[in-house]
Every structure is written in C-alpha cells, then in structure tokens.
C-alpha cells in the first residue's frame, strides 16, 4: 500500500527553517540589546550615592531644646518638638510640593500653596495629601540626639529623655 507523500517541513511553510530560526534569533538579540541598553542607562543615571546632606545626623543634646520648644531646623528640613520629657522630630517638607513649612501658632503652614497642619503634623487645610511624617529619633551613646530621616515612624511616638 502506498501512503500519500507527506509535505516536508519546509514545504508546509509554518516550519522552522534554518533561515527563519536565525533571523528570529538575531532579531530577538538586537531587540534585547536595545532594551538592555536603555535599562542600563537608567541604572547609570540613578545615583547610588548622593552628595547632599546626610539623612542621619545628630542635632545636639536634649538640653538644647527646652520643654515646649518647637525648633525648626530648616536646613535639615525637620522640626524638633519637645514637650516635657518627650521629644520628637517632624518633617518640615510639605507633603504637597516640597516647600518648607513654617512653624505657626496652630502648627505648621506652607507658604507655597497654603497647606496647613496642626501641632502633630496632621492636615487641617489646603491641598496637602497627607500628614507630615515623623522621623525616628534616638539617643546616641555620646548623649546627642540622632535623627534618621530614612525611617518614618507613627505620629505620636515620642522619645523620652
């Protein structure tokens, strides 16, 4: 009995011929290199180290801040709040557009777009989308207060000194 001759792979058209495989592979390679190039450029321009102000710094001894003090360290963009023996560091960078908020009678107010915050940094008015963050604050072995702006803590968490 004679079976009908099957078309060979190349004749059927949808087969992977050598030429097709090679062009597919090289196309993939070229396109892939393009993506890798773009991606590595992105990695390149994202700085690994910043040369500006460090995010961990000490601000002096607790005695420098008398009870009831609300000292805004504008260059550090942080406000040191002391209430009795409780001390905390609240960000003074407006959560709206990054202006420095000023300490006001009722809390903080932003000069750029009129955002207002209460004493604890909660939004009381204006376009600010969220409260001012509180930063972790620790007592270093040498007795100085250290603020870590990389670590945000919950509002109301004071350090007792």
């Amino acid at each position, binding site marked *: 009995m004679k079976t009908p001759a099957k078309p060979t792979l190349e004749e059927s058209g949808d087969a992977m011929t050598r030429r097709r495989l090679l062009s597919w592979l090289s196309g993939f390679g070229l396109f892939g290199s393009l993506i890798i190039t773009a991606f590595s450029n*992105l990695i390149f*321009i*994202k*700085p690994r180290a*910043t*040369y*500006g*102000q460090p*995010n961990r710094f000490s601000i002096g001894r607790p005695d420098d801040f008398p009870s009831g003090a609300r000292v805004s360290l*504008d*260059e550090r*963009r942080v406000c040191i709040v002391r209430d009795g023996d409780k001390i905390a560091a609240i960000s003074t*960078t407006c959560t*709206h*557009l*990054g*202006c*420095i908020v000023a300490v006001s009678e009722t809390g903080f*107010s*932003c*000069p*750029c*777009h*009129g955002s207002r915050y209460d004493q604890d940094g909660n939004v009381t008015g204006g*376009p600010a*989308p969220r409260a001012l963050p509180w930063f972790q604050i620790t007592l270093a072995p040498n007795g100085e207060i250290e603020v870590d702006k990389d670590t945000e803590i919950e509002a109301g968490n004071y350090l007792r000194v």
Partner: protein
Amino acid sequence: MSNQIKSRPWKSLVELPENIWRSIFRNPLPSSDLGRASTSFTNFFLHLHPVKVHRHSLRATFTLGLGLIAFFLFFILVVTGILLMFYYVPSTTQAYDRMLDLRGTVAFGIFLRNMHRWAAHGMVAVVFLHMCRVFLTGSYKPPREFNWVLGVLLLLVTLFMSFTGYLLPWDQLAFWAITVGTSIASYAPLVGKEMKFILLGDSTVGQEALLRFYVLHVAVLPAVLSLLIAIHFWRIRKDGGLSRPEEEDALPVPPAEVELVHAPAVVMATSPAAAAAAEPVLQKRNYGIQGLVRGPFTKVGNVPDRSVFAWPNLFMAELVVFLITVAGVLLVSLLFNAPLEEPVNIMHPPNPAKAPWYFLGLQEQVSYSAFWGGVGIPGIEVLLLLLVPYIDRKVAGVGRWFARERLLANSLFLTFVIVNVILIIIGTFFRGPNWEFVSPW
C-alpha cells in the same frame, strides 16, 4: 602655442577668485526659472526647501510665520546659549556669582542673558501658538497626522528645555520653581518618586540637580530638539508642503511670462548627452526635479501651477520673518532685563513660591488636587493632543482658518486653550501669599 603655455599660471591666478567662488556656489545668481530651480536644489541650506512652493503657503495671514519664528528663536537660543556657556559654571557656590558677573563684568553679558531669557519665553509661547494655528486651520489631517504628533513632542521638549534652564541662575526664583515643579512630577503613579529622584540626583534640589539640569539643558535636550525639528521639517516636504484647501488648485493659473532661455550649465545633467538635450527650453516647462514625492504637491509633469519658485519668493519671506524675530528679541532685550532674585536661601521660600509662568496654570490646578491637577489632567490633555489626528478623521475644512466644517473640533480646542490661559492668568496675577486669592488692582 608657446604663448598659451606661458600665460597659463597667470590666467589661473586671474581666475582664482571666480574659480573659488564657483567651486563653493555651483550656480550664478539665477536669472531664469531653471536657474532658480537649480539654485534651490544645489545649495545645502536651500535644498531643505522645495524648489517650488504653493502661493497659499506664502500667505502671511495663513501661517502667521509662527513655525518659522519658533525655529528662529531656537536658533537665537542656541547661539546665545553657547556664548553664555563660556562664562557659566554649574555649581551651587559659583552659579549665582556668574550671573552677577554677566551683569557687571562680561562684555554684553547682561544683553546676552536677556536675549536668551526672552527668546526662551518667546519660544514657549510661539510653539504653543503654532500648535493653535495648525489646529485651527485643520492642518493635522492626513497625510500630516504624524507631523502633528512630532509637533506635540516638540512642545513638550520645549517646555522641558525651558524648565531645565530655569534652575541654572540658582536664585530664589529658580530654586523654588524647580522645587515645586519636580514635586508635581513626583505625583505620577508608580514611577513619580523614582523619576523625581533620578531627575534631581538627590532627594532635594541641590548640587546634583543643578549639574543634571545643566547637562540636560545644554546637551541632551538640544540634541533631541534638533533631531525632532529635522524630522518635523523633512516631513513637511514629504507630506506635500503646508496644508491648503483643495479649491486652491482649481483656481485659475496666473499668466506666466513665457520667455525663451538658454539653459545654463545644468549641474543635474548626468551625461554630456543630457546636457546637450538641455538646449534652449521653454520657460513654462515644469522640471521634474524633485522626483516622485508622495502626496498632493509634486507630481512629475503635473506640478500645480499655483506654485511659485522658492527662490526668491520663499527665501525672501523667510529672511523677513528672521529679521523681524531678531529685531523683536533685540528690542525686548534692550528694554527689559531678565529677572534675577536673591541667591538661593532654602530657609526662606518666597511666599508665594511660583513656577515659571507657563506652568502656573498647572500650579493653579495643583492647588486644588495634587494628583489630578499636576499629573492626571495634564496627562490626559497631552494624550488627547497626541491622538487628535487619529480621533478627528474628517477631511473637510483643511487649510482654512476656522472652517465651518470644523466648528465642533475648533470649539473644543479653543475651550482647551482658553481654560488653560485663564488658569495661567489666575496663577500669575490673582494668587498671593499662601496661594490665596488676591486682586491685582
């Protein structure tokens, strides 16, 4: 015979100036149509133009010359920008002093800075007006859809270009405008924070940001802008010149003077036979010099006769626009000095801290909602602008201002323009300390 040999060195010396001139400029000043055509064709700067241009494209009331003005302003910006680079240092400790030096010690320093500043503001405004012209004359219709898209990209790059330049004087105005501007960017979902960090090279505006903005401003963005401009111009040609109404081609052809001219040495002639064929020709003949170009403008043997030679019609028009642009920038620069405020003091933000004027509409929106005002709505607006030629597919009313057939599209666009202009006016004049509403009177 011997006489001839003797005189040769002398002869080539006598002919030297003319030979040099002719080696640079292939054609004598044209006196015939063929000459006009080949002058446009054989000069590097002129060959960017078509050999013939439609009368409609030359109407000042149709284009208002806005695209050209934008390009010439860019040209002025490149020249003055490069000159300013000789004295500028992108360092937080030196930049502001260099601004003062430009005022005090550098020859023409203040004048160059004025020109650069005012031309930059002018370019933002003119590019925007050019977009309005293109929309209101329906000039983004096929086959010009993609050139509209390129135009929108050019507007965005122009804005970014101006924005990066804003930081460089390192005064209070610069610092706080960029602080506010980059914070708006950080509201973009997912990538916003990263984008701001990469743009500033740090978490706040400082030395890294100044260096990055400088590199973007003097190298990256001008390169991108030049490339986009080149493609934009190239496409005007390939899409068949500026848009014009269909009826234009049906209008009666103005009588052309028919004169018999002797063909000058034809540079395009590739063989002696072809040159010999270019015997005395009839003036009115249409030369198929451009070859085959897609679109309604140039077809070999069927060049619309409502067109005129680019030399001198188009070139004179361009020269006039150029001179007006330069004169305008010079005049404004003589009358008004570019603002320079106090040096940066991060402890004392000015109240209110305002972005550059073209972003004040954005800042006004941001004062209602940071995400929607700063990212959401502008993002949608840009997306819609990019998609305009793909949404509006009707082909009626092309090449005319405020065509009746385009009433809906034009009304929508004008609404968009007016709303943004009003927001900018409110942000500029009606917002005082704490961004509270104040009356300018």
